């Protein structure tokens, strides 16, 4: 499967943030099987440790737990991002609450995967965010669709020019939510995988930009969270 130029690449340096030591150990062990692709350079169990660790190690990708004491992943993002714009964050969560997940996405994480993800998929996702793409799990696609969809009884959109997804982006998100892989979406919509990634990235950017109105509060209004 690996093409020659992929083999030349250096492994992605990954930093793990999760308040459960057992879970960190598990992820470390699972990622070790993909040693040529990803290398875990450090880990942290709290917000403070994470901030210090990321400053020290300067990893390529931070695998960030959403739910932690002292403010969770959003707090880590808030404290690390301004000084280290090159570090990419991927949210890795067991949480079902859209509010938590969307807060991290809006804080600047480049994607969101659930903790039930296979190690192979996780390694692939890490690689993908490191290369600048966004990674959406079906669940996150559902959250975003829900927050952006216009339904009767929902709060009106305060800022129409900013926030509506284009029909194409919506289509991509729908397929993502239905469990399609990027490659499958591409063949389904007769576009290239690169285009799919562009659409997903622009959805992510809109989600991050949409702090002019409170996306998470909106989600709460819709009893999403």
């Amino acid at each position, binding site marked *: 499967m690996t093409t020659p130029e992929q083999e030349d690449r250096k492994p992605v340096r990954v930093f793990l943030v999760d308040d459960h030591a057992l879970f960190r150990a598990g992820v470390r062990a699972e990622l070790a099987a993909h040693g040529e692709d990803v290398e875990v350079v450090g880990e942290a169990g709290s917000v403070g440790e994470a901030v210090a660790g990321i400053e020290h190690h300067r990893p390529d990708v931070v695998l960030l737990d959403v739910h932690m004491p002292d403010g969770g992943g959003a707090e880590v993002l808030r404290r690390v991002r301004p000084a280290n714009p090159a570090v990419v964050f991927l949210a890795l969560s067991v*949480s*079902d*609450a859209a509010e938590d997940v969307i807060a991290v996405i809006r804080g600047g994480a480049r994607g969101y995967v659930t903790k*039930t993800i296979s190690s192979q998929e996780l390694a692939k996702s890490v690689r993908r965010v490191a290369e600048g793409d966004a990674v959406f799990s*079906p*669940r996150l*696609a*559902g959250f975003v*669709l*829900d927050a952006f*969809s216009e*339904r*009767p009884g929902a709060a009106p959109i305060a800022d129409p020019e900013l926030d509506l997804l284009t029909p194409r982006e919506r289509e991509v998100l*729908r397929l993502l*939510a*239905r*469990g*399609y892989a990027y490659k499958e979406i591409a063949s389904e919509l007769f576009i290239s995988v690169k285009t799919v990634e562009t659409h997903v990235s622009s959805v992510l950017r809109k989600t991050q930009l949409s702090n002019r109105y409170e996306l998470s509060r909106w989600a709460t209004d819709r*009893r999403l*969270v």
Partner: protein
Amino acid sequence: MAPYPCACDHLGVSSQQLVEEENATPEVFADRRLRRSGSHKIAGGVAGGLAEHLNVPVIWVRAGFTLLTAIGFIGPLAYVLLWMFAAQAPPEEQTSQMDAKERQQGIALLALGVGLFIVITTLSGSLASWFIVPTTVGIGGAALVWREADEAQRRKWRDGARTGVTGFFGEGSAKARLRLIVGVLLVCGGVGLFLFQQVSPALVPPVLIAILATLVGVGVITVPWWLRLVRDLDDERRARIRDQEREEIAAHLHDSVLQTLALIQKQAENPREVVKLARGQERQLRTWLYGPTGYGRGRAAAAEANEAAETPVSGGTLHEAIAVACGEIEDSFDVSVEQVVVGDCPMDVRLTALVQAAREAIVNSAKHSGVGEVSVYAEIEPDTVTVFVRDRGKGFDPDQVPDDRHGLADSIRGRMDRHGGKVRLRTSPGEGTEVQLEMPRKKEAKA
């Protein structure tokens, strides 16, 4: 001349008594506090409570009050003081009801007491009318106010609500509030009358100002104390709520997670069973934490959800129905079903058919796809509900399905057709299978 044996003896007896008393404590002392009776009451239930406390007939107590009233109006004073300081007996302790005869008897005794008092004072001339009138007015007003307070307390017990002062003033009916106002006016009037008769008119304003100044002074001095009282109450309440939450969480974890972990330890050599248990437990805990009626949704949301559940029209929502169906299939077919639901709406007949069809589609995937994962995506739009059931398994050629296989034809297609829905199937060998179910929503549900 033998003090020691005596002392010993004495000591022995007393300690034995002490032991007896200690043993007796739960039965005897629990009920020894004077409580006002709620059932045997004419004004405040003081006489009834006292009778129960002293274990004598009520009529004796009332007669005693009457006699005390005749002698210099001590009876009402004692009555009011007892009313203020004895707590109302809670409703569950009130057994028998007072009959009309007893009430008449009580009122007659009351009238007799007042009459006797007036006769005696008039004859002896010991107390002037300036004292009687204001006192009577004042006591009458006080009685009204305290009776309202009792009512408020009873209401609190009945509703089981912790309303406190706001409930005391805000909750009562207009009639109750009127009674309260009249009571307060009567008390003020009584005090005013007393004042006017005692003090010459010229002195009234300075006296009033002095009283007011004193009241304000006392108020200012005691402000820190009041604040501390309020804060302490607040802290206490918060601590209690925290404790309750902690207990609730502990109880939940004990009932769910710990039990499952114990089962998993026992089943450790049976990986399938372990996976099934873990999956079921995860789902349950997830629902508890993040579900619509879940613990993590906050009290208001939970209350709202409870209200929604109580209204008979909405028998759950589509989101819940899909979650339940997916959960059942996960448990019985040993697959993991990832469900993503966008939007939500109440269930109706069509949507029930839709969920059943989707359920059948998931079962088919679980049985025939040969993979352990099924994705379910449901999108609820203003006029349609769409459900996609997808697996990445073997797939099949729809034309090759034998005619004797009814799952897809009857359970899915037939069901959807009958309710005006559409089914689309995308599959081919090696490509996995996706069943798309589309059901129009009722128009009135939109409004």
